[in-house]
């Protein structure tokens, strides 16, 4: 203890061995968990990906065969394509709703806090819960959406929203927008509120129209925030699983199998653990690449600011 007290008076000096040990002791539990449940599993995944690894029986070294196999795996390629499509559509939809919402709740006025809270509520429930809720709402006989449309006389018969690809895809997009838009809204709101109000006020006095102020002031000043919200939305969408598993079970015609869903099927339904591991490595590489782009984007934003 005396050591620490003395040393804190002399910052910059290397601390004694006992102090270093104590510091390591404090972080030991966290390090142990991260190594045991993150670092080791990543290494094991890479190792497994080079094997034919059935659930029972001996695993066999097969080099990069798993990676060669996936290039010709039509179902994997279609899972990749579907995940890409979903990521693009979901991200655009979320932004198209979240940005206007952020502008809507930006100014301090009456009830604005209540609006923010209500819009944010779906964010705090689970994606699995939300999927379950919406699979009921979208049900053809016992749900809400179809029967309501029929009741309003907009359709002859209550439509089965989860039976065709287009309708099911649209339903899932609406569910995800409902669930996530509040989150993106809050992120964008922090960016909006970080814009110095005197700049905007000066532009207004100078006669800049509302759209001009938005286009030439707000958007450029929000680059960093938009990049961040974009990355969060893209990574979240690439890892989508719950909504497809719960709402459509990968249907109709198995056309809604996302990459994570496909890995899940390969690893835990077909028990091709080695092949599942190689797919996982590809997924991991995609996400690390995105993280690197993220760091780069945010850094570029820094230089501009």
């Amino acid at each position, binding site marked *: 203890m005396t050591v620490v007290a003395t040393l804190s008076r002399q910052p910059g000096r290397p601390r004694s061995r006992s102090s270093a040990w104590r*510091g390591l002791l*404090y*972080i030991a539990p966290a390090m142990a968990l*991260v190594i045991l449940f993150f670092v*080791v599993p990543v290494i094991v995944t890479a190792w497994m990906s080079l094997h034919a690894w059935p659930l029972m029986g001996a695993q066999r070294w097969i080099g990069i065969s798993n990676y060669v196999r996936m290039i010709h795996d039509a179902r994997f390629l279609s899972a990749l394509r579907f995940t890409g499509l979903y990521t693009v559509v979901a991200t655009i939809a979320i932004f198209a709703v979240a940005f206007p919402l952020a502008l809507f709740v930006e100014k301090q*006025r009456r009830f604005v806090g209540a609006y923010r809270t209500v819009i944010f509520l779906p964010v705090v429930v689970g*994606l699995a819960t939300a999927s379950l809720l919406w699979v009921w709402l979208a049900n053809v006989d016992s749900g809400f959406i179809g029967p309501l449309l029929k009741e309003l006389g907009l359709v002859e018969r209550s439509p089965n929203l989860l039976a065709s690809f287009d309708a099911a895809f649209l339903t899932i997009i609406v569910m995800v927008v409902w669930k996530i838009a509040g989150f993106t809204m809050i992120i964008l709101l*922090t960016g909006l509120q970080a814009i110095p109000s005197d700049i905007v006020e000066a532009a207004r006095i100078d006669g800049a129209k509302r759209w001009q102020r938005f286009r*030439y002031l707000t958007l450029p000043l929000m680059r960093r925030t938009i990049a961040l919200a974009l990355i969060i939305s893209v990574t979240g969408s690439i890892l989508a699983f719950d909504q497809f598993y719960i709402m459509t079970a990968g249907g109709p015609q198995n056309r809604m199998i996302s990459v994570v869903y496909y890995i899940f099927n390969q690893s835990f339904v077909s028990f091709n653990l080695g092949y599942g591991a190689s797919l*996982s490595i590809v997924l991991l590489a995609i996400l690390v690449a995105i993280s690197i782009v993220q760091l780069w984007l945010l850094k570029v934003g820094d230089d501009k600011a």
Partner: protein
Amino acid sequence: MTMTQSAFTLDPTMTDTRPTDAANEAAKAARARRRRNGAVAYHVAGAAIALFFLAPFAIAFLASFRSGPESMTPPLPPWPTTAFSLDSYRSLDTFGAGVWQHTLNSLVVSLATVILTVAISLLAGYGFSRYRFPFKNTLFVLIIATLMIPFQSILTPLFIILAKLGLNNSLFGLVLVYVTLQLPFSVFMMRNAFDAVPKEIEEAARIDGARDLKLLVRVLLPLVLPGAATVAIFAFLNAWNEFLAALVLLSSNDNYTMPVLMMAVRAGRLGAINWGAVQAGVVVMTIPCLIIFLLLQRYYMRGLMAGAVK
């Protein structure tokens, strides 16, 4: 730069207008009217937006109290029309080991995740903030870098490692995985919280004879409590809501957390889905999240901002 200049050129009509008093009054009244209309339009839009985000919860909540036969019909209107009934909750109770058991599983997992996450990130945050040791920055970056790696890609080895530890199909094993997933965010939060505490406070406490864990718990914990609250809320919500890892790592019926149990309800029996049980399950899984968020919104938003700003 050129774009900005062209955008900010003055509007000549705005500069030289000197209206008379009467015109001034009329203009003022018109402006007030416009503002009032604007406010009305704003709140009409606000109410419509709020309805969209609130309605699914409200419909599920109200509909879950309809009687057995009624629960299979569309929720038009969503509230019980014959009589208030707990049929849906009763039928939910017939799945798995009963709704109490699975709610309890979820609660145990979530609370254990909260306690362990707070304890471990408190220690690690303190260590990273106050001590100097070899590879300190490398180790900190290692913890944060796990944010880049999706846990979805390491589920198989997690399964194998837990099995080797004798923790397969165990709630405690699931807790350890959840705690690890929470660590990057939590350690980051707690280190920042400790960084914000002035060193003088610690020195004064040391002079008074408090040291090590006692110093940490008695003196520093109250000062970093807001940070710990943020960590706790995120740990609870993420553990309570997590689905995929629970689905993969839990194999016996009795251990299922609520989201996994709900898959049995979703699958239905003999091809028929009991929608009443689905509604009841959604309510059971939703209520704790909403209550915690509404009570501790301030701490939740702090965590979100910390994440967004970093």
